[in-house]
């Protein structure tokens, strides 16, 4: 039967002594003592060591991709596209990504005719194929129907590789076709959003890591070593929702762009009780205890010397939210944290504190027999939380998972994203009225992504950028301590924007207890 594919020596367990490859440990904190705010002293900086692996930004994700020369006309290009999009903006009938009906949407997307105009008009396609050119995943339509298309993609890749070269991207007719080669897989993104190649690579990396998190790298390599024409869809069956959720998240969640996590605003007393209760509910093989409210972090406890990577946390959080099965009982699943160690599985106990609650507890262990131990940890955590009267406070905090930007007291400021680099956490107010619709939300994200890609340009990075459009004025600023993206009303001036930064930083400093997790606890 089909069982032979992974019977041979799969490493289900991560050897305890060797949890992280050495190079993943945060050994290089940025040392630039530039004027302004130095890392570690910015608002929101952790008081002790950071709980996350230190990442600059998406350089870290794309470090192994060689980005080639500069593109002189980039700025104009983006402006131009923006106008195009404004032109067609009213229609907006091209996507079916309704978050509330996402599941039906996925089903519909899979049945979509790949020769139809609607299929062609999707803003962003993502394809995954094997080196034999066999389809593994497509975001829209069915894989079978696309075998010719994917064959062409593989032909392009091989053709360039035959000359000892690597195909990175093709720009044509308002489209960008971006290739990511991760043997034994090839990932391709076809996009007509204004995103830069770097941003699209980052998204493809996420899809790649998503696949690794289900299979581990050795298993992925082994199945293709055994048979080059292996149909990987067999092993990925049932993960379509997870991948679709991830792609959706990449379009809406700034945390995946910034390599940072947003924490749930919570008063510091409650947070401390939650953290210490979680810390006390430990078990021998536990590596990470993560409490999430939706995609917001409430508490993270880790084993000494072990750091979680943001990518892994986003993958975990997406995994939990993409199946309702965790609400029906206690979930127990192998999961690979690819940035931590791509070669082995952890075992995650995933459950909601209450069936109807948004509070999801993930306990990550190295031992696959640990289920009942971890189930017990959860009970102890919950009991302690209730005994210390923090559970009610925590549930109340869920009613206001975000805050209006008006709290800052700058009338022209519409929205902002602030990332503290040393803690790896970011904060952002709720989206104000002009950005409540899905298209506008995506448009704002794309503007931020554009600023982000300019700040982190591989050859010509900027420290700050001020940009005016018809509908808003934007400012982005990166120091060694923080990264800040601001969105102002179009009537705001540059001088006002600059003074707003100071005021905002003061406000964040004042609120940092509530907005950030300042203590990083270990077991």
């Amino acid at each position, binding site marked *: *039967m*089909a*069982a032979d*594919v*992974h*019977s041979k020596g*799969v490493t*289900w367990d991560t050897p305890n002594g060797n949890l992280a490859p050495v190079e993943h440990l945060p050994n290089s904190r940025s040392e630039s003592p530039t004027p302004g705010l130095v890392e570690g002293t910015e608002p929101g900086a952790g008081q002790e060591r950071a709980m996350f692996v230190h990442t600059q930004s998406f350089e870290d994700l794309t470090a192994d991709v060689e980005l080639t020369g500069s593109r002189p006309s980039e700025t104009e290009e983006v402006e131009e596209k923006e106008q195009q999009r404004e032109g067609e903006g009213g229609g907006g009938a091209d996507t079916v990504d309704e978050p509330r009906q996402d*599941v*039906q949407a*996925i*089903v519909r997307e899979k049945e979509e005719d790949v020769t139809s105009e609607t299929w062609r008009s999707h803003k962003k396609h993502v394809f995954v194929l094997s080196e034999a050119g066999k389809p593994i995943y497509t975001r829209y339509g069915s894989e079978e129907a696309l075998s010719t298309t994917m064959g062409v993609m593989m032909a392009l890749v091989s053709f360039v590789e035959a000359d000892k070269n690597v195909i990175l991207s093709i720009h044509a007719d308002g489209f960008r076709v971006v290739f990511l080669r991760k043997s034994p897989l090839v990932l391709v993104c076809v996009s007509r959003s204004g995103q830069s190649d770097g941003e699209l690579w980052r998204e493809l990396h996420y899809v790649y890591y998503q696949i690794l998190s*289900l*299979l581990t790298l050795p298993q992925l390599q082994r199945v293709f070593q055994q048979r080059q024409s292996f149909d990987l869809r*067999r*092993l*990925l*069956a*049932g*993960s379509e*929702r*997870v991948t679709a959720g991830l792609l959706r998240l990449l379009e809406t969640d700034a945390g995946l762009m910034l390599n940072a996590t947003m924490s749930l605003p919570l008063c510091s007393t409650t947070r401390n009780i939650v953290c210490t209760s979680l810390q006390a509910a430990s078990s021998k093989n536990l590596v990470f205890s993560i409490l999430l409210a939706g995609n917001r972090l409430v508490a993270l406890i880790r084993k000494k010397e072990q750091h979680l990577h943001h990518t892994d946390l986003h993958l975990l959080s997406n*995994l939990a939210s*993409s*199946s*309702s*099965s*965790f609400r*029906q*009982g*206690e*979930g*127990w*699943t*192998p*999961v690979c944290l690819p940035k931590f160690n791509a070669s082995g599985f952890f075992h*995650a106990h*995933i459950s909601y504190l209450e069936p109807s609650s948004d509070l999801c507890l993930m306990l990550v262990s190295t031992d*696959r*027999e640990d*289920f*009942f131990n971890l*189930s*017990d940890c959860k*009970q*102890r955590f919950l009991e302690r939380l209730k005994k210390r009267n923090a559970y009610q406070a925590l549930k109340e905090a869920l009613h206001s998972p975000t805050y209006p930007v008006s709290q800052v007291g700058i009338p022209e400021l519409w929205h902002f994203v602030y990332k503290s680099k040393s803690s790896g956490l970011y904060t952002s107010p709720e989206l104000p009225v002009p950005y409540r619709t899905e298209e506008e939300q995506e448009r704002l994200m794309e503007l931020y992504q554009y600023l982000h890609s300019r700040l982190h340009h591989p050859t010509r990075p900027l420290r700050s950028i001020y940009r005016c459009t018809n509908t808003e004025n934007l400012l982005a600023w990166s120091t060694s301590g923080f990264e800040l993206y601001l969105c102002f009303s179009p009537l705001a001036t540059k001088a006002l924007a600059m003074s707003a930064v100071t005021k905002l930083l003061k406000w964040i400093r004042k609120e940092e207890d509530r907005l950030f997790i300042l203590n990083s606890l270990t077991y």
Partner: protein
Amino acid sequence: MTAMRVDAKVVMLGKESVGKTSLVERYVHHRFLVGPYQNTIGAAFVAKSINVGDKVITLGIWDTAGSERYEAMSRIYYRGARAAIVCYDLTDNSSFQRARFWVKELQTFEEHCKIYLCGTKNDLVEGDRSARQVDFHDVQDFVEEIGAQHIETSSKTGNNVDALFMKVAEDFSNSAFELLPEEKGVNLDPKKNSYLYTCCHH
């Protein structure tokens, strides 16, 4: 250990989308969720107490994912199980072939595990006889051959669902419970579990 006591470990096995989760959902929460199909990721555990005569038996039900990806993992879910509910979809013949695979697997590795073959989605074949792809008598023959039990259920209407789990609990109560007077409740550590079987049955 303060965790719940589980008397009998019950594992749900079968091809993906045959309705294992729906069956558990109907039994434990008395509901049938209409809506798009949701894959189980890994496995989900839920404990449920049931009255058998004057005894209370807690079934620890492991609802496993049907995806092939988790196949190599499945042993940790069914190891030490007292009962396995192997599900197949009455309207899908390939799911019955898959069920045969699980039966073989269980016979090889868990000889003390009672097998219950469960044909799901009974409501679909009741309305439309031509929808049936797995013949009742064929399964009956197979079941007799392997010494298992056979039942057809519908999680949508609730037909036979309680009866199935009741049967599992009764069978457990009649067999192992008396054999282990000292050791009421199966030790929760699956490693010791298998040890416990070897010393009790041989």
